């Protein structure tokens, strides 16, 4: 069943005329004309629609968190679609902008907000132009402005173009940027629902989430909840890219096997290639392997499989891509986009890239993989926002799942550089496998006599590294 892409191929859908001809703004009329804000909110809650931006928080709940009362409240649409591999919001905004505007008006009615913004990434110049044109039409038609369709509900809407930073897709970074400040994430709590834009209660939702609202009003929340599976209701746009034959955006019902999307819809990897790994939800999701292809594509199943649905961007990587190259691409992206406010993300992303560069240039040993894995662990959960985790989770999963390939890459690069094989003491894991950890090493006392203290052999080189690093 298609809700968002119902008429997506209709020529001229971006104009008000075509959109209205296909039933556009009927939901708005229904919500504002026949329903109270509480009733609309009830439908949203009944739909159990989970946020499509990445975090997967229930939209109805988010709306209900906004304090009641007559203070200035804001609705912000997060259109800073920056997660690598994600391009579904672009298609929505470019082809059916009125659906988003309609969704914003209905959501603002339910949440009691009177000012709204669409924060769109600066690179999306064409979608922003389309939105601007659609907004002018909507204003003209009385869907935006004072006393919309005589309902007493008023709403202003501003399309704001960002200046190009991944971190401005993080909701609090977005708010700072929208306020005209440097886009740095804020400390939470307070959460935006209480103190968001200009310190006022703020509802922030993704483009796809808000675009789904008219459909929910049209078919009813309970009906919507029947789509998909129990904890992941409804349909979802999936952006599929990478080594597949038919990349693009597909609307699927949540809960279908991932294989059906990758092979069924996208046609699988090119002739003669095998899937090495795949990101199920954007480049910040831990990678999964071909063994995981039968995992149902929904929030909870992917979580159980050790990854996440994220923004719904599947990136397929086949066996032609070295895993080190993939890790490097991911790490460099997040290093470049780290805002620098908190320590683990700022330093951790930078350090990870430097280690990967060393691995690639043949100056590493397999022990560096242990350090790299431990650095990822030190980042996860310790940062101000989730950007650090967004690098650490996929990199950590790559090291865990493709360690032999990393080690082979290291040895090959060392060979190319004429550095010879890495030290025989490869890693604790490798040694344990050889059963050599205890028997072939000198007793601890002897190590101490050589000034190595009581460090485990694996740390030996790290200590020497301190001197090099400090010099």
């Amino acid at each position, binding site marked *: 069943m298609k809700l968002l892409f119902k008429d997506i191929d209709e020529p001229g859908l971006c104009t008000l005329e075509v959109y209205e001809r296909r039933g556009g703004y009927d939901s708005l009329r229904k919500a504002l004309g026949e329903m109270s804000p509480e009733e609309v909110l009830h439908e949203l809650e009944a739909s159990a629609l989970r946020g499509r931006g990445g975090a997967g928080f229930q939209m109805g709940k988010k709306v209900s968190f906004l304090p009641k009362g007559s203070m200035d409240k804001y609705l912000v649409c997060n259109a800073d679609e920056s997660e690598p591999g994600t391009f579904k919001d672009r298609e929505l905004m470019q082809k059916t902008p009125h659906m988003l505007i309609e969704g914003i008006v209905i959501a603002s009615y339910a949440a009691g907000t009177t000012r709204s913004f669409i924060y769109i990434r600066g690179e999306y110049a064409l979608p922003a132009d389309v939105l601007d044109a659609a907004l002018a039409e909507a204003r003209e038609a009385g869907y935006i402005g004072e006393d919309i369709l005589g309902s007493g509900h008023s709403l202003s809407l501003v399309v704001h173009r960002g200046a190009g*930073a991944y971190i401005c897709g993080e909701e609090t970074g977005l708010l700072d940027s929208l306020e005209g400040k440097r886009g740095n994430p804020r*400390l939470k709590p307070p959460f935006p629902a209480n103190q968001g834009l200009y310190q006022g209660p703020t509802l922030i939702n993704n483009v796809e989430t808000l675009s789904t609202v008219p459909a929910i009003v049209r078919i009813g929340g309970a009906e919507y909840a029947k789509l998909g599976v129990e904890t992941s209701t409804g349909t979802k746009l999936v952006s599929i890219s990478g080594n597949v034959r038919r990349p693009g955006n597909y609307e699927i019902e949540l809960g279908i096997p991932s294989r059906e999307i990758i092979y069924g819809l996208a046609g699988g990897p090119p002739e003669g290639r095998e899937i090495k790994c795949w990101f199920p939800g954007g480049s910040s999701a831990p990678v999964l392997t071909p063994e995981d292809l039968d995992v149902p594509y929904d929030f909870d199943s992917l979580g159980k499989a050790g990854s996440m649905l994220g923004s719904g961007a599947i990136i397929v990587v086949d066996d032609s891509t070295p895993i080190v190259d993939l890790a490097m691409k991911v790490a460099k992206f997040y290093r470049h*986009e780290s805002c*620098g406010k*908190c320590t683990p*993300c700022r*330093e951790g992303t930078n*350090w990870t890239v430097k280690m990967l560069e060393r691995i690639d240039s043949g100056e590493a040993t397999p022990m560096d993989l242990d*350090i790299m894995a431990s650095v990822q662990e030190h980042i996860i959960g310790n940062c101000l926002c989730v950007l650090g985790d967004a690098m650490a989770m996929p990199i950590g999963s790559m090291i865990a799942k493709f360690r032999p390939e990393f080690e082979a890459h290291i040895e090959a690069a060392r060979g190319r550089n004429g550095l010879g094989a890495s030290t025989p003491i490869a890693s604790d894991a490798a040694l344990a496998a050889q059963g050599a950890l205890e028997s072939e090493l000198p007793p601890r006392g002897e190590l101490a006599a050589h000034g190595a203290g009581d460090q485990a052999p694996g740390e030996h080189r790290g200590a020497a*590294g301190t001197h090099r690093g400090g010099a």
Partner: protein
Amino acid sequence: MPRPEQRTITFTIDGLEVQAPENSMLVDAAKHGDVEIPVFCYEPKLGNPVGACRMCLVEIEGIPKLQTGCSTPVKDGMVVHTQSDRVKIAQQSIVEFLLINHPLDCPVCDKGGECPLQDITFGWGSGVSRFIEPKRHFVKPLELSPTIAIDRERCILCYRCVRFSQEIAEDYQLVLLERGAHSYVATFDGHPYEAPFSGNIVELCPVGALTSRAYRFRARPWDVEDAGSVCTLCPSQCNVSLTVRDERVMRVLARDNPEVDDGWLCDRGRFAYPRLGGQERVTEPLIRDGGELRPVSWERALEEAATGLGRAGKSTGALAGGQATGEEGLLLARLMREGLGSPHLDSRVAGALPLELHRALGDPSLQAKVSDLEFAHAVLVLDTEPIEDAPILDLRLRKGVRRHGMKLLRASSHQLLGEESARELARELTAAGEEIVVLWGERLTAGPDGERAARALLDLAATLSLAETKGAGLLEIPAHANGRGLREAGVLPNSGPGFEVVGEDGLDAPGIAAGLIDGELSALYLLGVDPLAGSDWDSARWERALERASTVVAHAAFLTEGVRTHATVVFPAQAYPEKEGTVVHPDGRIQRLRQAVAHPGATRAEWWILADLARRVGIDLEVLNGAVASRLLFEAVPFYAGLTLEEIGGKGVRLEDRRATVAHS
């Protein structure tokens, strides 16, 4: 505006039940249980926490992720762990991350030995680094401003300096440029960071990234001693800690006293010390000989002064100000009144007010204190420019506006004198609320309309019920740093110590100038002031007055215009780091100066000089040392009765509060 009220709660930290104020941040609450949680970016003086450095991660039962102790308010029954393996690993990893790009140049770094990064690395780090890649490099050190050097390689990007510039001083000059590991602290287009409070960022910096150019490479922490005192360069009287090495002040740091300065210093107070201990100081007695000042022995100078003053007798006028303490004021008043029989002395530039006005304006129930500026509903700044006259109060006003929504109004005495405009002013103030503070400058009472303006101010206070309202009142910024203390000590032509009547009225400052010009007076005694230096004085008139005076005795640390051209005897004066004695803050807090360094050259204490002169003109003031001078002062001023130097201690005693306590007991 409501002041924060705090309830005490009980929580558990590392297995220990601890009582702490509710909603205080965990890092502060932990201290009540003697548990230290390390921090870099957290500094409560800077306002709300930002949670950027992540050093203070702790484990709280019931919350899956580690939380930042700097931003988590403590709740009743909370169970916190700071010593679990999870927390230790997180702390070690943050230290490791911070040291990745931090040069390990501690032996040549100014911060070494007093560096939070060193201490925390030692206490919470793992002791080894696994980082062997090249570090980040910047050109260094650079001049951030004429007084501050910046070493960007050492910066750990804690945001403290940027937050100070943006949210405390509100000069908006410091920003972070670039992103991620390439971020660095900078100003727009590299312009120098020139602002009235810039020096505070040096003290805020938790590493050696921001250093004082005057202090750089002058001393290591183990070479120096700290001496607490009070800066008397302006009426703010900020509490300072002087870094002393080999009898020289090497640095001035803030000594936290939230009721006085909120822990900040202005750049004047922070960076004036090289001059105070510099080559230009007068360090030996001088007399005028053949038109030129030349050094002489103390005996010669004292004799010359005593002879001149004795000859003039009651035709002597005296002015006190500058850095003079209450003790010096009292001794000067006694020398004048008892020794020379002259009532012509003044510590006010503007001239005397009728005694009843002095008493009314100084009425204890009308006095606001510094922290009232922060919590008041409205503050009226009247005939004063805080950034010039008492800079640190400027920060307090900004804090009130920014954090508590205080309404700030400015006016001049002209508005106060017009009937309609005064009513309008009162209306605007009461619109904001009842707690209103009027911050007014001594110059309000200057000139022919001075007395009328003072009465209008009292009328305004009555209209606004300032005396009856808690947290409301008047706060005067006097022209001299210790203006209030000198008046209370009796350096006024119409009153003795404690505003008591003593004999007939003498001439006030403008009167003394007139007296010298028309020959009624023939000698002038200048204690710490020079009427030709400083913009508050009518210098053309004083130029003529000084020309006519046959004897001008001056206590001076520097040969300023009037002293250099007109003094007949110059005694070297102490600068505040060399002084002992007491001063009174504009809000009535009596504070203690403690000698931090030895007197340069032949300089002697003012009390000694005044006592010696008094002996030479025939009276014994019975002063044997500085402490005796203080005791004499406490005995002389009725409302100082019972004060001791010990009671004043390091944070001072606010006389209004003390009087209230005395009245209750």
